[in-house]
């Protein structure tokens, strides 16, 4: 499959009064088109920094971001980016929140609403279209935020711990819902999470990251057959991958070891 996003020696260092702080060591990373790829790692491993760089919100200190082979370093609006918080605008209805991306791209409001309505119905937000976000539950708000990201027509979407704040039950539902969306929309998804099990269940490939400096320790392909049942988590193959990930996550930071 063609490479959709390629990080070419991308690194990030911040200059602080105490000296240079390296957030991300120069790294190469290729993400193939239509794949579901997860980045797993402890806090401070530079996951969010990487996302900001890919989304063009942060200029890397070195390297280039290539999207479809084109240099997209520092350009915004090329990928859909869902931050940890849902960031729904409280003065807009759910429908008008969901069309925000299309609206900013200059699509006529009427057309954007017509496009969004059937999707809201299909993906579990029927009856909520004209409500304000403050009357929605956490899970519903995340759904709206995800649909907003999807309806911003880009091939790549970045999801930064979208289910981190949800309770365990809702989280499982949302994972299945996300799988349905992904197979319907055929987008390239880059997913950040702390939750190893979540990453294995959802992904085609996991990049396990380490801290100080942020770097990819190992890339683990997940070949479990799709669609995956919940019970997949009980198979020896799944457990073996999980064990491998957990061992990697216990790797000490470089500067500490040195």
């Amino acid at each position, binding site marked *: 499959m063609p490479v959709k996003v390629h990080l070419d020696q991308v690194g990030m260092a911040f200059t602080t009064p105490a000296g240079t702080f390296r957030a991300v060591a120069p790294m190469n990373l290729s993400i193939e088109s239509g794949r579901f790829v997860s980045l797993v790692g402890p806090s401070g491993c530079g996951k969010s920094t990487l996302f900001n760089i890919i989304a063009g*919100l942060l200029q890397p200190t070195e390297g280039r971001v290539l999207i479809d082979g084109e240099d997209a370093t520092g350009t*915004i609006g090329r990928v859909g*980016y869902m*931050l940890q918080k849902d*960031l729904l605008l409280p*003065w807009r209805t759910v429908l008008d929140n969901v069309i925000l991306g299309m609206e*900013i791209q200059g699509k006529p409001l009427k057309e954007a609403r017509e496009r969004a309505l059937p999707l809201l119905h299909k993906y579990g937000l029927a009856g909520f279209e004209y409500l304000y976000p403050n009357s929605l539950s956490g899970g519903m708000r995340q759904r709206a935020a995800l649909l907003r990201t999807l309806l*911003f027509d880009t091939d790549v979407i970045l999801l930064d711990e979208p289910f981190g704040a949800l309770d365990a039950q809702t989280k499982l539902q949302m994972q299945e819902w996300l799988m349905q969306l992904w197979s319907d929309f055929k987008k390239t998804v880059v997913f950040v999470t702390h939750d190893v099990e979540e990453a294995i269940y959802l992904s085609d490939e996991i990049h396990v990251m380490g801290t100080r400096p942020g770097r990819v320790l190992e890339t683990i392909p997940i070949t479990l057959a799709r669609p995956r049942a919940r019970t997949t988590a009980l198979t020896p193959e799944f457990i073996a991958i999980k064990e491998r990930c957990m061992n990697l996550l216990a790797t000490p930071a470089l500067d500490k070891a040195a």
Partner: protein
Amino acid sequence: MTVQDTRHVAGMTDIDSAPSAPATPTGKPVRRLPVQKDWPLWAIVTTQIGILVGIVGLWEIGARTGVVDGFFWSQPSAIARTFVIFFTEGDAWTDISFTFRSTILGFIIGTTTGSLFGLSFWWSRNYAAIAQPYVICFESMPKLALAPLIILVFGLGLTSKVAIAIALTFVISTLTAYAGVKAIDPDGEKLFYSLGASRWQVFRKLVAPACLPWIISVLRVNIGLALTGAIVGEFISSQHGLGRTIFYAGSTYEISLVWVAVFVLSTLAIIMYAAVSWLESVLRKGTGQ
């Protein structure tokens, strides 16, 4: 507190709680949630009217019997007579409309320009940093001290009253709108930029609506300030207005007319306050909160 004191206090507590609240085996007094019974609305309103009638009645009796000096304090019956004369023979409506117009104009112009100035600080951090000391300086200055100067510059007419009302409302609107700007979640801006938004789009679709509740919250304060500004302007020098009527009546010892003008002014203030509260609720509906 000494040991002796502590023992003394503890002893007192025991005696106090002993008859009404028998101590439990753990030694803690039994205490029930205090219950307050709400009166029906008619009882509350009747009491309120009763108090008003009582005060007015006592005032009148006091003035007639000489307990209250009628020269300084006037008396309700005289005030009522002056009230009728003020509205039938005096230029009540000219004065009311003069004060009303200067207040409303000052309120609208001061709040709008002040808020826009505050919002404009979002546009550039450098510009905000440069402007800030001036804004704070103007904020801490007692604006009413400038009133005589404003009257000299803008003349005796409506303009000078509007200008004083603007001076009072402008800075607070600026500071409130700027506080709204500072409270915007940076992640919100990040979301907009990740969607490829321009600065103008972020301003129009995120900054302005996010600051609207802040600006709404300043409306009620501003209507009071604008009225104060207009009245002070009329005190200093004016040909019309309720403030001028009060000032004029006071200097000619027409105390009943002072009371009439104060009463009319309060009514005007209540009406404007109610109108602003209504405006506030209408605007809030649009913000989904």
